[in-house]
């Protein structure tokens, strides 16, 4: 393998889409598939595909597959680098941070002993190791957060190509196996906070005990600031990840519970037939009242009471009369009234419409027709709020108008 970092980075830039694709999929690619990928990601390239593979292998961007000399894959470390560049990190194993924190604890003890022994070289050496361990913890935390963010975005944009069940399992694992243990480490009162406090205490003790040393105060200050930075960033990364994952986790968990319920119901339907839906029917009752119930009945009672009062007027004419020629009395046919009302359409005031439409008929017939229409299930009646009055030849009626419309 050639060790020319500049040329390696140039090649990585030139073939970034191809390398990124292979790193993302993580599988070895044979020569024929490589030709397709080469054509897809760099169609104008003059370099033959087999030569390209050799070149990338020469500069460490490819390695031969374990099972074939004519298949290549992106080395793990290159894949990690490419994912870092495109901020598409993979999730770290849940327990990866714990050993680093443990190492910080060991180094803290080593530093304490070096301070007690006032061994300056050992203090310098240990503090450098501490700085590396703290940077590793910080980097792991940041990369883990980016990986979580990447997965959340893939889910939100449906690029993860998972079914709801698969998505639920994934986000549950993310929540319970990554975030929960991470929270135990980095959250307030967790292992990281305790170890950080110990390290800060040792660094301060070193500064206080060797206050006149030209280097120790600076080394101690650097350790304290590194610890604080690592602690703050890890805490922030964890809570940012939590803010991203928790609502999504809850939504997917809710969706999954619903889908599970429905699957169970559909399976029951397959086995038991429509009887399986009985429980649904009982819980999904729908109101289907005709408006001839409460409102119209109250209104009609009011009107009938009014008629009763008018009937006691001494000057009132007989209800039915015959004309001089002995012809049939005026009788308002309920069927004809209903047909006429349907033809005229919705009326804001049923009584006024009847009186105006059938002006030649006596009040008794008008009121009977009113009763018939209001009780007729073909029509929907609704009482108005404002009291109205209307005069006929025989009487003045004060009433709440009834709006009437066809149910058809």
């Amino acid at each position, binding site marked *: 393998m050639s060790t020319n970092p500049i040329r390696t980075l140039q090649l990585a830039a030139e073939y970034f889409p191809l390398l990124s694709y292979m790193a993302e999929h993580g599988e070895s690619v044979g020569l024929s598939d490589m030709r397709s990928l080469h054509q897809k990601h760099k169609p104008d390239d003059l370099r033959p595909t087999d030569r390209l593979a050799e070149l990338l292998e020469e500069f460490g961007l490819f390695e031969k597959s374990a099972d074939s000399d004519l298949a290549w894959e992106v080395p793990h470390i290159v894949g990690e680098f490419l994912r870092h560049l495109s901020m598409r990190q993979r999730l770290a194993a849940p327990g990866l941070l714990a050993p680093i924190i443990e190492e910080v604890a060991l180094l803290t003890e080593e530093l304490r002993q070096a301070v007690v022994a006032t061994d300056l070289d050992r203090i310098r050496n240990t503090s450098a190791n501490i700085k590396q361990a703290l940077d590793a913890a910080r980097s792991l935390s940041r990369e883990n957060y980016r990986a979580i963010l990447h997965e959340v975005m893939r889910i939100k944009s449906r690029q993860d190509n998972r079914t709801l*069940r698969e998505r639920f399992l994934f986000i549950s694992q993310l929540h319970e196996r990554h975030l929960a243990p991470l929270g135990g480490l980095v959250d307030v009162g967790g292992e990281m906070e305790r170890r950080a406090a110990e390290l800060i205490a040792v660094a301060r003790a070193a500064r206080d005990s060797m206050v006149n040393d030209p280097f120790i105060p600076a080394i101690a200050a650097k350790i304290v600031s590194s610890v604080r930075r690592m602690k703050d960033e890890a805490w922030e990364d964890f809570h940012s990840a939590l803010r991203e994952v928790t609502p999504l986790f809850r939504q997917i968990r809710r*969706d999954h519970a619903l889908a599970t319920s429905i699957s169970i119901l559909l399976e029951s339907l397959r086995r038991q037939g429509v009887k399986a839906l009985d429980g*649904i029917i009982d*819980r999904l009752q729908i109101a289907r009242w*005709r408006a001839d119930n409460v409102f119209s009945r109250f209104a009609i009672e009011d009107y009938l009471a009014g008629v009763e009062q008018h009937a006691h007027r001494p000057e009132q004419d007989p209800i039915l009369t015959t004309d001089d020629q002995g012809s049939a009395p005026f009788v308002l046919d309920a069927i004809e009234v209903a047909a006429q009302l349907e033809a005229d359409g919705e009326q804001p005031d049923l009584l006024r419409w009847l009186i105006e439409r059938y002006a030649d008929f006596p009040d008794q017939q008008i009121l009977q027709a009113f009763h018939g229409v209001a009780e007729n299930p073909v029509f929907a009646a609704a009482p108005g709020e404002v009291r109205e009055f209307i005069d006929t030849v025989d009487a003045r009626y004060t009433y709440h108008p009834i709006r009437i419309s066809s149910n058809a």
Partner: protein
Amino acid sequence: MLDLPCKLDDIFREFSRGRHLSAQDGDIYIALEQRPDDYILLFGRLGFELVHDARGFYYFAGSNRGIAGGIQRLALFVYILIDWLADSGESITEALAGKAFAVDALPHLASDRYRGYLAHVDVENADGLADIIRTMDNFGFAKQMGDGSFRFLPPVHRIVDACIASNRETVPTDVTQEPESC
């Protein structure tokens, strides 16, 4: 004179024919939202139970007398769509929150399994599906968009709730157990 809430006649007419009112219904929903307790009290005195669901809709508690078959069709239509969304990896939450569905791309008649379910409620073709969507529109569970698509309205949560509650009763153990087809 009584201080009656406004739009009373319009609101009563809609509720009494089974409609669920949500923000989609404009003025009459706004009127309800302004004085929900007054309406509940008033209708209660008249013998009607007005239910206010916190997810943004109102309806009259009713009965299933005479319309049980229709309700079965509505419920099954929604459940099949959700089952298909789950298998396709689509968000059910988004679907219930008003995502548009093209009627001619619905999955209900596209698989033997779904056709088998629908046969139990005598729905066998696209006309049957169109009838269901129209009924859902009338009841306020969905809105037809006029471009061959429809979307669910908040009252559809009643249909979803009914499934969960029904399963809680019939499957007393954890409903999140492994399903066969999810």
